[in-house]
Structure formats: structure tokens, C-alpha cells
């Protein structure tokens, strides 16, 4: 459905793309192709997600490799913006314009005549549910409303490709769900949507495909379920406090799901490679050994540790 597909070109393609700033490598040899559907760029802050989006959006030149949109280079090609809707991460929107004026200005800058621009702006405003505030200056908007105004501006010319940098920032849960539905609906119409997020659950709920970016590298990519499985099945470490840590350690070592147990400074630490089976078997093992469990804590559940596991994998 996209222009790119109509011409037989891939909507977005990165081939061996790197980008560095002086000696700092922000993006390191990344390749992927997108053609329709929603793709989430997932990674911790500073991983290089924005750099990738900016390169696709034509606002950064790759230091090496090629970034193409609809088969032509993204850099130095303003004509490409007829096909792209861009929602930047930075919050600032012209504070003196109303939401409607902003959407209309976007439509006019896309080359629409005034009547058509006004109708397109009204459609976009309705799509993001901003009708009530549409005639108030953006300067008085909440963060979530400003975000929706930005999305309206990006959608106003009905682009086949949408790039969104942290689009759910500042939205309340209801607005977030609505935006997710909106993106899913647009992807179902054949658009290619690429968005970035550092929040696992956001990506999980909306993206069909995930690109995990860690320290500028593509750590994993593919179907979300596959990535989720990798994340769940990675080795987990727990600390346990019980009525008899030493006896519990010996009892646990007989279980096949336990990869190791150690008593370190009076603290029992257990490693497992099967999170699900482990959590099911621990209570039974303790009960059979006549030990009471006081506390069971995962030691390293931060997103960063999940990401770094994916990189080391």
C-alpha cells in the first residue's frame, strides 16, 4: 500500500549503518528492512534509538552504510517527507499556535491547498481525540496533549511511513491505549510504522516486530514472542532467606532447574536457567525439606541487565 511497495522498493532499509560522533560510536553496523507493520525500537536510554530514527528521518547522515526510504537515500532529500510522518521526541511545539492551526500548518507545508488542509487537519485532530482543545494555544497544553498535537501534525498528510520517537511519553494510560489502537489500525492499513521506546511493556503491547538496540548494536530482532522468550529464559539469580539456608541449598541442588547455589556471607544465592519451572518447584522443595521460606528476591531484574544479557548471548 505504501508508495515504496507500489514501486517495489522497501519502505525503510538500513544496510550496515554506523554513525559516530568524534570517537563515540552511537550506532554500530546495523542492518534491517521494514515493509509494513509496526516495529518497535527497544533499548535503554542512550542506546542509539534516536540516532537510528533521525537517520531514517533524514536528520542525520550515516557515517558509513546506507539508509534508504522507498529505495532512495534518506539524507539530503526533502521530497521524501511527502511519504513520512515524523513525531520527534522533543516536546517543544510552537506555543502560540492552536492545535488546529498547527495541524493545518503541517498540511499546508505538505503542499495542500487551504480548504483541503483545513479538512485534513480536522480529520487528524479527531483521530488523536484532541477536538476539545483544538482551538486553544499549544502553550497551555499538558504533555500528553502536546504529544497528540505532534502526532496529528505528523498524520495530517496520511503518510505511508510513520516514525515516532518515544511517542507514549507523557500520555496517561487511557491516551496511551488509544494511541496504541491508532497505531495498530494504521499498520493494518499497510503503513510502515517505526517507533522507539525504552519501556518493554509498551513495545510488547503494540509492536509486531522488535529491534532491540543496546550500546548502538542490534542485540536481537524479530517477533516479539521470540524476544520475550529469550528474555524470560535467560539465567535468573535469586537470593533466598529461609529457616535453614544451608539445608535448603543442598535440597535445591538436587533439582534439575537449579544451575547453582552458593552461601555467601550467610546469604543463599541461587541461579536458574528456567524461570518458570524454578518458581513452581521451590516451594515444594522447601516444604519437603521442612524449611520455611522467608524471602525470595530476584537480584537483577533491571531492563539494562536484560538487555546486556541479550547482547552477550
Amino acid at each position, binding site marked *: 500500500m505504501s508508495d515504496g511497495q507500489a514501486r517495489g522498493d522497501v519502505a525503510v532499509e538500513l544496510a550496515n549503518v554506523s554513525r559516530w*560522533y568524534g570517537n563515540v560510536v*552511537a550506532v554500530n553496523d546495523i542492518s534491517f528492512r521494514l515493509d509494513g507493520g509496526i516495529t518497535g525500537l527497544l*533499548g*535503554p*536510554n*542512550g*542506546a*542509539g*534509538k*534516536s*540516532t537510528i530514527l*533521525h537517520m531514517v*528521518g*533524514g*536528520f*542525520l*547522515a550515516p557515517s558509513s552504510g546506507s539508509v534508504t526510504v522507498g529505495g532512495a537515500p534518506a539524507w*539530503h532529500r*526533502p*521530497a*521524501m*517527507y*511527502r511519504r*513520512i510522518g*515524523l513525531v*520527534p*521526541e*522533543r*516536546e*517543544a*511545539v*510552537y506555543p*502560540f*499556535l492552536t492545535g488546529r492551526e*498547527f495541524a493545518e*500548518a*503541517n498540511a*499546508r*507545508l*505538505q*503542499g495542500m491547498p487551504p480548504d483541503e488542509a483545513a479538512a485534513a487537519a480536522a480529520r487528524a485532530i479527531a483521530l488523536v481525540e484532541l477536538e476539545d482543545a483544538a482551538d486553544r494555544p499549544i502553550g497551555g497544553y499538558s504533555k500528553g496533549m502536546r504529544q497528540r498535537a505532534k502526532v496529528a*501534525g505528523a498524520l495530517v498528510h496520511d503518510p505511508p511511513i510513520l516514525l515516532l520517537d*518515544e511517542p507514549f511519553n507523557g500520555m496517561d494510560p487511557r491516551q496511551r491505549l488509544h494511541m496504541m489502537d491508532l497505531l495498530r489500525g494504521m499498520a493494518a492499513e499497510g503503513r510502515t510504522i517505526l517507533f*522507539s521506546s*525504552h519501556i518493554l511493556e509498551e513495545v510488547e503491547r503494540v509492536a509486531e516486530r522488535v529491534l532491540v538496540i543496546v550500546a548502538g548494536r542490534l542485540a536481537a530482532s524479530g517477533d516479539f514472542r521470540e524476544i520475550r522468550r529469550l528474555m524470560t529464559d535467560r539465567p535468573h539469580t535469586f537470593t533466598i532467606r529461609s529457616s535453614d539456608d544451608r539445608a535448603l541449598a543442598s535440597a535445591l541442588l538436587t533439582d534439575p532447574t537449579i544451575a547453582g547455589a552458593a552461601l555467601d556471607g550467610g546469604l543463599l544465592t541461587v541461579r536458574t536457567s528456567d524461570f518458570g519451572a524454578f518458581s513452581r518447584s521451590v516451594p515444594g522443595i522447601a516444604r519437603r525439606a521442612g524449611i520455611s521460606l522467608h524471602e525470595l528476591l530476584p537480584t537483577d531484574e533491571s531492563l539494562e541487565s536484560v538487555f546486556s544479557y541479550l547482547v552477550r548471548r
Partner: protein
Amino acid sequence: MNGVVARITLRQLLSRRRTLLLLLLGGVLVLVAVVFRLAGDQLRALPFTAGLLGTLGIGTLMPLVALLFGTGAIGAEIEDGTALFLLAKPLRRRTVVLTKLAVAAACSAALTCGPMLLAGLISAGGLGDGLVLGMTAAAAIGSLLYCAVFVALSLVTGRALVFGLAYVLIWEGLLAGLFAGTRTFSIRQQTLAIADAIASVRRTVFDAQLDLTTAIVVGVLVLVVATLLAIRRLASYEISGETG
């Protein structure tokens, strides 16, 4: 020129606080003229007007107004990130730069020439043998030149305001007074040369330090080079500051 870019730029530049501040600056010029009219030596009306418009008008008001508008036309948008909304459009970068330059120059000229014309008419008690019109018309051209330089500067550095102020104060204010050669590249001196050519007053009243041909040749050169530089810089605009 693009109407939407022009309207947005205009609303951006003419924020209430900035306009009020610049109107106050222009008001000082008019106030000095009124005081002279009421209490000054009316036989010296022409030399006084030449000094007032040349020093306070062309030498102070014009560069300050152009500095604020020129660096604010694109630089402010780039700084706060709103430039992306204009740049992520199928618009030629040339159109964006030329439109913004035209709006910045028009605003600068309006807020410089208006007070200068009024102050000149009051202190000279009329057109003053073309002195008032000459100074005012030259200030419009000077505003354009300054804006071209400051727009380009704002696309070259994030500290355009500081560098612009340094150019006005150090290069034009200090060096151009000490070394004749530096006057060639002083927009203030080019503007005064044009004013001198339009006005038909005696040399004892007002005499520019730069000849007209040099002023025109260098002025056109400055305008073309600064505008081309701005277009080139905007065409290769890269978002700075990696956030994630």
C-alpha cells in the same frame, strides 16, 4: 517565499516581550529627539540629527534589533527543536532560509526605520535636506545585511547572539574606529555610506568614512555569501544531542 513559514516566523519573532523591548529601544531615540527639539540649539539641528541617527540609530538600534530578529528567525527553532516541524516537509531549504531572512529583515527594518524616521523628523524639524530619508532608507538596507549575517551565524554556531554582539561591539565599535581597513567589512559603515549618498547635506554635517562603490560591492558580497552559507548549512542540518 512560503506563506506558512512566513506567518509562523512572524508570530515567533513578534512575541510580546521582544517587540515591547525593541519598541522601548526605539522610543529612546525618539525621546532624545524630543528633548533636543524642546531644549537644544536649533541652529545645529542637522548635525545633531546626523549624529543621532548615525550613532544611536544606525550604530546602536539597527544592529541590536537585527541581532535579535536575525538570530531568532531560525536559530531559536533549532535550539528548542521546533525547526523539525518545518524541516520534515517537502520544502526546499532555500525557500525556508529566504522566507525567514525576508521576515527577519522586514521586522528589523520596521522596528529600526520607524523610530529613526520619527526621531529624525522631530530633531531636524522636517526632512533635513534628505538626511532623514537617507538615513532611514539606508537603515532598511543595513537591516537586511545584518539579518543575512545573523541568520547565517545562527546556523553556524549555537552562540550566534554572543558572536553577533562581539561583531557589533568589537569589530564595528572598536576596530573600525582604529583601523580604516576593517571599515570595509563593517555593515554599519556600509549603511552610513549609502545614507551619505542618498542625503544631500554638506560634508561638515555628515560624511561617511567608506566610499559608496566599496560599500555596495562589499554589501552585495556579504548578502550573497551569508545567504548561500545559510542555505548550505540548513540543507546539511543534523540534529545534535543524542538522547537515546
